[in-house]
């Protein structure tokens, strides 16, 4: 099994998680978003030709509504660069094998490289309701979004994990 960027000729039709929205995104939108519009990149966990899981990421930035004065003194007044994880899903055939954790580790390492190369203060994941505890276990905190929330329904919870925390875990 390897995790790598989606390729145009990967067979996405046989992927089935328990979430039709996540399946439809991979099958219908991930390719055009990546190869035509360059909006984000989907990384797939693949074995042979079978996609066992995927995570879709894109760069983004966080702006804080009415930043407190004390914080304003410490930080520049421009937006904070982050890596956004819009979707993460595992095929039902690969459930219980730790693939979600492997995909998350891959994404966090990706963000760490982004931080080293051109800046990234942390990772924002759009966590579906049943995944909030999964991300919280790794230290992600829920944030209240005023603008730029996911269009998915039911609306996922945006959760933040700081680069300092990620780097601290690597040691």
């Amino acid at each position: 099994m390897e995790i790598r960027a989606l390729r145009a000729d990967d067979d996405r039709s046989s992927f089935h998680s328990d979430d039709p929205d996540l399946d439809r995104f991979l099958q219908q939108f991930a390719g055009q978003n990546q190869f035509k519009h360059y909006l984000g990149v989907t990384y797939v966990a693949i074995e042979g030709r079978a996609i066992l899981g995927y995570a879709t990421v894109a760069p983004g930035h966080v702006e804080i509504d009415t930043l407190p004065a004390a914080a304003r003194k410490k930080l520049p007044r421009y937006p904070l660069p982050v890596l956004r994880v819009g979707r993460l899903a595992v095929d039902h055939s690969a459930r219980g094998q730790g693939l979600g954790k492997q995909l998350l580790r891959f994404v966090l390492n990706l963000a760490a490289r982004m931080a080293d190369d051109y800046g990234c203060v942390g990772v924002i994941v759009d966590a579906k309701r049943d995944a909030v505890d999964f991300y919280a276990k790794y230290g992600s905190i829920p944030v209240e979004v005023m603008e730029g929330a996911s269009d998915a329904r039911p609306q996922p919870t945006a959760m933040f994990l700081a680069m300092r925390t990620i780097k601290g875990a690597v040691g």
Partner: protein
Amino acid sequence: MHPKLAVSRKSGEAILKQMDAGKPTDALRDLMRDGD
């Protein structure tokens, strides 16, 4: 995904706090050190 995410002041303060003094959980340490 919308590239811009505007968060509330309260959430912004929590983000800044984690950026300033965040410590990894044991689960995160295990995750990042597990090299499988």
